[in-house]
C-alpha cells in the first residue's frame, strides 16, 4: 500500500543518505506479514540505536516497530526517558510529550485523526517508561482508560528511573535497593495490569520481551483491539542492565528469570469478551490468508 507514498525527487536521489534510500526502496510498509523476522533486513527497523549495549529496551523497541500492523498510519506518543533517545531513529510518526502527559496527548490525537481522516485506519500507540506511565502520568493513564480512548498503551517497565540514575518508581519491586534509593522500596510493586483491567482496558498483557514471537502477537492484538473496541495495555519488562548491576549480555537471562512461574513477570493476560470475539475473527482471517498464500505458492511451483 504505502511505499508509493514516499518518493525521493529523482534528481536529488543520489545525494540522499543511505537510510532514506533504503526507506523508499525496501521498507516493510504495506507488507501484510511484517513482523519481528524482518529485523535486520531493512534500515527502517532501527539499524542503529543510541541506547546502551545489550539494552533489552532496544530489543523491545525493534520488536514493537516490526510488529505494528499499520506503521505508515501509526503515530507513536512517547515520553521522557531512554525511549526518547530512540525515537529520532524511528521511521514512524512520533510525538514526544511532556513527561507524564502521553495518554492525554494520545487521546486528543486519536480523536483528531478520526475526524481528519474518516474511513482511514489510524492507530495511536503510547510508548513510555514506568515513571511516565505509573508515577508522573498515572492520572492521564487512568483517565484515558476510564474514557475508553481507542489506543494502545505500552509501558517499558524497568522498575526504576533508569535514565536519571536509579530512583525508586512505583513499579519497583518491594525491598529493591537502587543507586539513588538506598533505603530500599518499602511498599509493593503497583499492580498496574490489574488496575488496567478494572479501569476498562479490553486487552491487558504483562510479560517480558525475551520471546520475539510473543511480543509480536501481543502488540498486534493490542493494536487491533484498540482500533475496534477500546483501550489496551501492555507492560513489558525491559530491565535496565546498568541500574541492576548486570553486564551487556545478561539482559536476556534477567528477563527469562523474571518470567518464571510465580515471578513478577510470569505471562499474564486479560481479554474482554468483545476482544476475544474480535481476535478470533482476525485469527480465522489470518489462517485463510496463509492457506491461500500457500496454495498460490504451490501453484507457482507446480
Amino acid at each position, binding site marked *: 500500500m504505502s511505499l508509493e507514498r*514516499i*518518493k*525521493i*525527487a*529523482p*534528481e*536529488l536521489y543520489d*545525494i*540522499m*543518505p543511505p537510510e*532514506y534510500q533504503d526507506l523508499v526502496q525496501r521498507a516493510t510498509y504495506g507488507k501484510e506479514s511484517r513482523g519481528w523476522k524482518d529485523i535486520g533486513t531493512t534500515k527502517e527497523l532501527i539499524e542503529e540505536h*543510541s541506547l546502551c549495549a545489550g539494552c533489552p529496551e532496544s530489543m523491545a523497541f525493534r520488536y514493537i516497530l516490526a510488529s505494528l500492523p499499520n506503521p505508515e498510519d501509526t503515530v507513536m506518543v512517547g515520553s521522557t526517558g531512554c525511549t526518547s*533517545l530512540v525515537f*529520532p*531513529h524511528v521511521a514512524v510518526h512520533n510525538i514526544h510529550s511532556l513527561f507524564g502527559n502521553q495518554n492525554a496527548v494520545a487521546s486528543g490525537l486519536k480523536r483528531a485523526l478520526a475526524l481528519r481522516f474518516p474511513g482511514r485506519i489510524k492507530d495511536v500507540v503510547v510508548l513510555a517508561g514506568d515513571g511516565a506511565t505509573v508515577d508522573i502520568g498515572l492520572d492521564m493513564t487512568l483517565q484515558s482508560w476510564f474514557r475508553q480512548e481507542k489506543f494502545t498503551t505500552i509501558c517499558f517497565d524497568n522498575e526504576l528511573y533508569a535514565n536519571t540514575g536509579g530512583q525508586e518508581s512505583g513499579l519497583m519491586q518491594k525491598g529493591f535497593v537502587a543507586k539513588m534509593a538506598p533505603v530500599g522500596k518499602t511498599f509493593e510493586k503497583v499492580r498496574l495490569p490489574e488496575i488496567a483491567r478494572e479501569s476498562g482496558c479490553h486487552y491487558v498483557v504483562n510479560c517480558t520481551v525475551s520471546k520475539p514471537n510473543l511480543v509480536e502477537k501481543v502488540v498486534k492484538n493490542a493494536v487491533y483491539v484498540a482500533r475496534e473496541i477500546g483501550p489496551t495495555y501492555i507492560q513489558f519488562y525491559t530491565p535496565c542492565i546498568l541500574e541492576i548491576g548486570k553486564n551487556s549480555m545478561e539482559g536476556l537471562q534477567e528477563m527469562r528469570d523474571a518470567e518464571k512461574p510465580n515471578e513478577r513477570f510470569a505471562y499474564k493476560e486479560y481479554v474482554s469478551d468483545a476482544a476475544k470475539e474480535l481476535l478470533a475473527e482476525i485469527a480465522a482471517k489470518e489462517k485463510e490468508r496463509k492457506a491461500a498464500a500457500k496454495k498460490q505458492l504451490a501453484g507457482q511451483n507446480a
Partner: protein
Amino acid sequence: MATSSYKVLPGPEHFLPPAAAAMGIRLPNPGEAHIHGEIVPEEKAMEVAAKQFLMAKVPTIFPGPLVLWAWNEKAAQKAKAVRHLFETIKECVTPSQRPMLIPMPDYRPKYPKINPEIEINPNHPNLTIWHNKIDTCMFVGVHCHQANLSLKIIRGGTSCYTIAMCAQAGHEDAMLSFRDATAEKILKLAEWIKKLKGTVGPSQ
C-alpha cells in the same frame, strides 16, 4: 517605516544572536529581496547571490524536505531546478573551488551524531558547515521555522554567508533572502551565475 541600523552579517556573532526580526529587520514585499536586512529589488539580490556563489571557496546548496521529496509536481520541478543550479555552479567555478550539494532530509534531532559529510541537520547545522569549511550556502525547500532556527545557529557560530531561497515571505535571519521561490526563480539564479562567470573569483 524606520530603517533598522542592525545588519545581518556573517558571524560568528555569538552563541545566541538576536533574531533579526527583533532587531527591526523586516521582510521584503513581492518582487523584492533583502541583503543584510536592507530591502532591494529582486534582480539586485540575484546578482549579489550569484557573485557570492562564484566567490566562495565551498559554495553549497542545502535542499530541504520540501524539494528532496517529490510530494507534488511543483516540488519535483523545484528539485530539477536545484540540480540544474548546482550543475551550473560546478561549471562556472574554478578548479580550486569545491561546490557541494548536501541534503537536509528531515528535522529529527539525530543522536548520537550526524554524518556532516553527507547531511545537514537543522538542530546543529554548524557541524556540517565547520566540517566542510562551507563559506556560502543557500537553503531551499526547508520549512520556515526550521530554516529560521538553522540560520540563527549558523550566524551565531560560523562565518558562513547564508542565502535563503524561500517559498514564502523570506527570512530575516539570512544574509540574503529571496521570497516566493519557484523553479523559474531558481533557474534564473543559475542564469545569473552563468552570466557573471569569470567576472569574480574566490578570494585568496
